[in-house]
């Protein structure tokens, strides 16, 4: 046998009878459920009614155009995008503060994390939106933004921030979401920094790097690599959690869904559809991150 020859193909894990029985049981359960849905529930399914709120036919132009649910989805995406960016910034700063010697910074970051992690999100959003952001935004002049100005009235702005009229609401929502998720990112970053071995600190100090340099050149790059997977998970959580800002008049997917379901009374179709939309969104991000991670792992070898 030649040592360079490829290995024999690994034995495939085969389906055992137990596996087949289990699969059969699950399939039976699904079929039974489907059967009972129609037998037990008194419900008139009307999918076109709800699908119409995703894409509707516009008789004037003769084309299909986006409708409420799709706009909601777009808003959710925008929220998630900006929320992630901001939460990452907050998380990195606060996470670093969690590990420093300075007591001021440690107290601040610690209280931030504990506070947020121990209040229900709903309540946090309330307090933040009504008491804090209603102070900050008028002070920044965001409430009176000129909707026709050149800064605002272009397609890039619309893609990034949505309807200019709702800008201050949108920003408040993003800020809320970012503050909220930032607490979790903080803990992830802290864990990442602490996961970098003591030896790295010592070696970097031993070649005479200052504390800042050690952090910037040695610890952070390694920590960031370590925290990429949990950070990806947090991003997906953020997409899902973005539904809580519907409370403050931001018309993202969940809010649109409530409107549609109460207008049409087609509760099941709406929520099944919206559930599927969230799933597709989150799952494709999960796949994307998985792929990126694997690529990064390969290139590091």
């Amino acid at each position: 046998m030649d040592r360079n020859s490829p290995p024999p193909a690994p034995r495939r894990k085969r389906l055992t009878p137990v596996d087949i029985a289990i699969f059969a049981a699950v399939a039976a359960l699904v079929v039974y459920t489907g059967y009972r849905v129609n037998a037990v529930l008194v419900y008139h399914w009307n999918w076109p009614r709800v699908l119409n709120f995703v894409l509707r036919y516009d008789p004037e132009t003769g084309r299909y155009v986006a409708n409420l649910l799709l706009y909601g989805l777009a808003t959710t995406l925008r929220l998630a995008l900006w929320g992630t960016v901001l939460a990452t910034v907050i998380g990195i700063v606060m996470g670093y503060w969690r590990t420093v010697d300075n007591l001021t910074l440690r107290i601040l970051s610690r209280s931030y994390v504990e506070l947020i992690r121990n209040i229900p999100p709903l309540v946090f959003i309330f307090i933040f939106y009504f008491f804090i952001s209603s102070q900050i935004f008028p002070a920044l002049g965001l409430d009176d933004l000129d909707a026709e100005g050149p800064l605002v009235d272009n397609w890039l702005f619309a893609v990034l921030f949505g309807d200019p009229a709702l800008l201050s609401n949108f920003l408040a929502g993003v800020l809320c979401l970012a503050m909220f998720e930032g607490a979790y990112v903080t803990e992830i970053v802290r864990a990442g920094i602490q996961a970098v071995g003591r030896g790295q600190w010592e070696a970097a100090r031993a070649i005479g790097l200052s504390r800042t340099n050690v952090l910037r050149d040695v610890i952070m790059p390694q920590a960031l690599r370590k925290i990429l997977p949990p950070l990806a998970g947090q991003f997906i959580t953020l997409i899902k959690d973005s539904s809580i800002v519907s409370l403050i008049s931001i018309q993202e997917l969940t809010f649109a869904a409530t409107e549609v379901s109460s207008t049409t009374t087609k509760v099941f179709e709406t929520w099944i559809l919206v559930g599927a939309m969230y799933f597709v969104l989150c799952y494709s991000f999960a796949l994307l991150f998985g792929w990126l991670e694997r690529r990064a792992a390969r290139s590091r070898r």
Partner: protein
Amino acid sequence: MPGRVAEPTPRDLRRREQAGSDVRMIWRRISQVAQAVLVFVLLGYLIWRGAAAMDYGWQWYRVEPFFYRVIDGELIWGPLVRGLIQTLKLAAIAGVIAILIGFVTAFARLSQSVSGRIIATCYLEAIRNTPLLVQLFLFYFVLAPIFGIDRFWSGILCLAFFEGSFAAEIIRGGIQGVARGQYEGADAIGLGVVDKYRFIIIPQSLPLILPPLTGLLISLIKHSAIVSVIAVSELTTAGLNLIADTFMAFEVWFLVAGLYLAVTLTLSICVSLFERSLNKSKR
């Protein structure tokens, strides 16, 4: 060697030597704490300003009956207290079920069984990639009537399945966190699979699993607020009903937040004490 006999205790020595730098250190600490307090005061001021700018007529004098009433010398608990008790009950039952689901799923994922792995993976992906709210609606309106599950249990099961997916990952992480050498050690003295997990792996993974699992319980309490959408009478539901009746949104939200904070902070502190004692016993 003889020097050791006359030696002052290390504490004395250090005290003498470091007296100067200790004082400096303490001052630095005090000033740092003061700075932090300053920031808090600033934040508090901002919130206060926000509240004042709203011109809201606070009606705190109306909230007492939300907690209790005394009718004919008899104490009757108000909606918030009853809601809190329901919340705790809900979280406790859902927590136990979530942990069971977590163990089953974790082992299914770690096992060799094809069906176990596929089903566990499908469950995890489905739960992880959809919002809890949507799951709750589907579960309550579609599945519950089919299987004749009532509201309270729909809420519990839905929460349990949701948190169970996190529990599964925590447990799997804990089990995989046990060093490979321990598996090999167990194999090498000829332990069977069951014995290996029972005597070697699970006992060692528990210290890794328990702290995050108690953290999970905290998030379960917070997430339980969401079952208010299917009208299970817990704390948030009680709060929402009060708001609907009186429109005193801010007072009620603050009270509800305070109650949640009290419960979760108590638990958080217990967790960190518990973690600390675990770490100490490890040494």
